[in-house]
């Protein structure tokens, strides 16, 4: 397909997001000269609105790592981190980030990222975050670290004690450090106003994600889904721009539904939806396009995924609440997918299979990510037993291309799709006989 044809299928929302990102990285590249303070933090359970309310700029190391993966730079970065002693066994996001630092901290747009003024360790749903920032603290000596410990949803619910614990940490640890670094006083009213925007964008995102319940689905909730969640999971939640982006996106999705169109893929519109899948686990970034192509070539559409919930399980009703800003941020942090216990995850995935009328359930198990991967084989069995849909299992990595075996994955997926196809034929025959 020619470059012109690729350009032709860019929807307005895609162009808006591209501009938002370009502006964000431009701002980051000039942060030091403009005197803007920079906060490094993580995507799951982030406090973006709080950071923005101090006029500071957030940087998300996982996003840098995945962008490096998509731009084929991660292999070298990982190798450089391994050269200084990081084991082959450990998280490749961490190694990619450290490798990027060793190579001048050049961001995804080719511009240098500023060093942090504050390391905000929002320790949510992933133990490695803790280790990651301990390492960064030593690589950026003297930079203050604010720790926000998010309790795990051990009992399958959020208790008031846990909310109080988090709010206390924000009041006595996080906010004072933000005030110190930014030189500004905390402005609760400003934060509240931002949360109004957050809730608006969250409403719209949920509508977009739930449009996949429609048959055929107008969206791919995994491969395209990772773009849809971009602004709200990162630096734009709480901003007018995010609301505008999601308004535009929702408008486009509605139009696609009205016309009965399928999702847009990098090679144009999917003409026929053959299989509807629920996917558990993050995608592979180093071979993202190739990976996606295996699916759309077979007419497979991902109608729901757990990965698009790592920055918030909004479709289960959570909204940021401007009337209780800090409590709401606490509940948000505790509610993200990787902070759910395994029984909660299984319940959610089972619900997705049913509500989104999925033909199958697939796990992309990531070598680097124990937060997702440990226990996935049991999740798979539970879903198979409860829902009766065929399950599939493939393995890859986030940003280490050494662990993406195209032929192996394609082979497994083709067999899986053949099985789904046969099952559909048999089920049709059974229905006809009844």
């Amino acid at each position, binding site marked *: 397909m020619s470059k012109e044809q690729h350009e032709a299928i860019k929807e307005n929302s895609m162009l808006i997001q591209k501009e938002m990102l370009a502006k964000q990285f431009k701002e980051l590249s000039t942060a030091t000269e403009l005197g803007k303070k920079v906060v490094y933090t993580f995507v799951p359970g982030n406090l973006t609105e709080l950071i923005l309310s101090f006029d500071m700029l957030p940087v998300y190391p996982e996003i840098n790592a995945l962008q490096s993966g998509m731009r084929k730079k991660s292999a070298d970065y990982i190798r450089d981190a391994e050269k200084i002693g990081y084991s082959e066994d450990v998280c490749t996001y961490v190694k990619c980030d450290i490798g990027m630092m060793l190579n001048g901290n050049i961001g995804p747009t080719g511009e240098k990222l500023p060093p942090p003024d504050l390391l905000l360790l929002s320790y949510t749903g992933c133990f490695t975050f803790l280790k*990651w920032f301990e390492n960064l603290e030593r690589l950026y000596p003297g930079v203050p670290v604010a720790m926000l410990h998010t309790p795990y949803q*051990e009992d399958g619910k959020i208790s008031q004690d846990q909310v109080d614990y988090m709010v206390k940490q924000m009041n006595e640890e996080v906010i004072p450090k933000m005030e110190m670094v930014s030189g500004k006083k905390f402005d609760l009213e400003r934060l509240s106003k931002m949360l109004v925007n957050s809730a608006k964008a969250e409403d719209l995102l949920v509508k977009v994600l739930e449009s996949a319940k429609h048959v055929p689905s107008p969206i791919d909730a995994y491969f395209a889904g990772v773009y849809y969640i971009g602004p709200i999971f990162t630096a734009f939640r709480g901003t007018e721009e995010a609301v505008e982006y999601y308004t535009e996106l929702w408008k486009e999705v509605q139009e696609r539904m009205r016309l009965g169109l399928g999702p847009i893929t990098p090679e144009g519109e999917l003409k026929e939806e053959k299989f509807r899948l629920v996917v558990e686990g993050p995608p592979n970034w180093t071979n993202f396009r190739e990976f996606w192509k295996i699916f759309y070539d077979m007419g497979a559409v991902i109608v729901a995924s757990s990965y698009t919930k790592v920055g918030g399980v909004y479709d289960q009703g959570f909204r940021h609440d401007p009337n209780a800003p800090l409590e709401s941020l606490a509940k948000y942090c505790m509610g993200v997918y990787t902070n759910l216990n*395994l029984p909660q995850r299984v319940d959610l995935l089972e619900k997705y299979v049913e509500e989104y009328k999925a033909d199958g359930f697939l796990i992309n198990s990531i070598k680097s990510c124990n937060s997702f991967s*440990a226990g996935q084989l049991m999740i798979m069995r539970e879903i198979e037993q409860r829902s009766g849909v065929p399950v599939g299992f493939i393995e890859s990595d986030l940003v280490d291309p050494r662990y993406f075996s195209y032929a192996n994955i394609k082979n497994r997926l083709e067999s899986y799709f053949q099985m789904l196809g046969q099952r559909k034929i048999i089920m049709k025959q059974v229905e006809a006989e009844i």
Partner: protein
Amino acid sequence: MKVLEEILQECELLAFDLNFSRAKQWKSEDPKRIIVGYLPIYVPREIIHAANGISVGIMGSGDRKQIIKGDAYYQSYICHLPRGIIEMALDNNLDGFDGFLFPAICDCVRNLSGMFKLSKKGKFQRYFDYPQNFDPNIGGTFYKQEIGKVIDDMFAINGIKITSEAINHSIGLYNKNRFLIEKIYEIRQAAPWKLTAVETYYILRAGQVIPVEEHNEILEQVVSHLQNERGEPMDNIRIVVSGSFCEQPPIGLIKSIELAGCYIVEDDFMLGSRWIQGDINATTDNPLEALADAYINQSTFSSAYYDVGNPKGKRLVKLSKERDADGIIFCAASFCDPALLDRPEMQKECDLAGIPHINFQFHENTGQFKVIKEQAGTFSDSIKLWA
């Protein structure tokens, strides 16, 4: 008093009894008794003891059990410990356990708690979250709430309401336990040939699976025996082993290090038994506060705990100097994110302090030690010849 060799033999049997027979026998003597299993590294065992329970450390199946079913639950890139534990659960080794605690040390152990929940193993399965905030008013309060949940879990089983007196009594017993363990380490500090690292390991690991009162008796006898001469000093170097705080190295590996010419004068194998440094207040009206204070102010260090403000690398160097060690061996389980992510920075601290170090990785069921022995031997020789 039993002779030392007899004690060591008994401890070896207890340490690797994967059916936890002594704990089950202890429970069978009183219907109100309970068994609470816990994973590495640390839980405040005092509260379980105070609730008429026995806390049993589930340290993995090591190289003593063939893993068949466990491998079907875990991908190849996940450490070995949880697959051995799942195997034990499926083979009924853990039958009779009333509850399980999964300390917050990594994502694998955390998600294993969910797998036990889904499998409905035991009457409760609890991920035991630790505060990562070390302000007593914030993290301390959270910690007490976490302990309170475990107390409620146990109360729901045996109906025993624990009193301050009961917890104080239990704290006293564990204070004694830690004191005696440290005594053994001190004796070995001065004369490591008196008790090998493997023998020390048997003694400490046995303490994970028997009542603390019985373990204290054993420790007292061992300390008494060690007042006498035993063994001969050898031309070995003195080393610290770091990174084996969760998945345990096989005995063959520890032996190989020793046979290669290294006295292991400090290690983190059974770190949970030594987690709190010094005594906890056992004469207080608020023992939960005392346990929380001890956790916040008297914890040792490990890769599984947040350390900004008190970096582990510096603490390791300090410990190494206190033990008068010649070098450090970083010995982490494969795929252990906490230990392996710490390693580069800890090694950097060793370099700055001029402490030689080497590293290798293992699985709990590693069977080949030749390479490790050669590596440790070369390390020992190089220090003896050129340090």
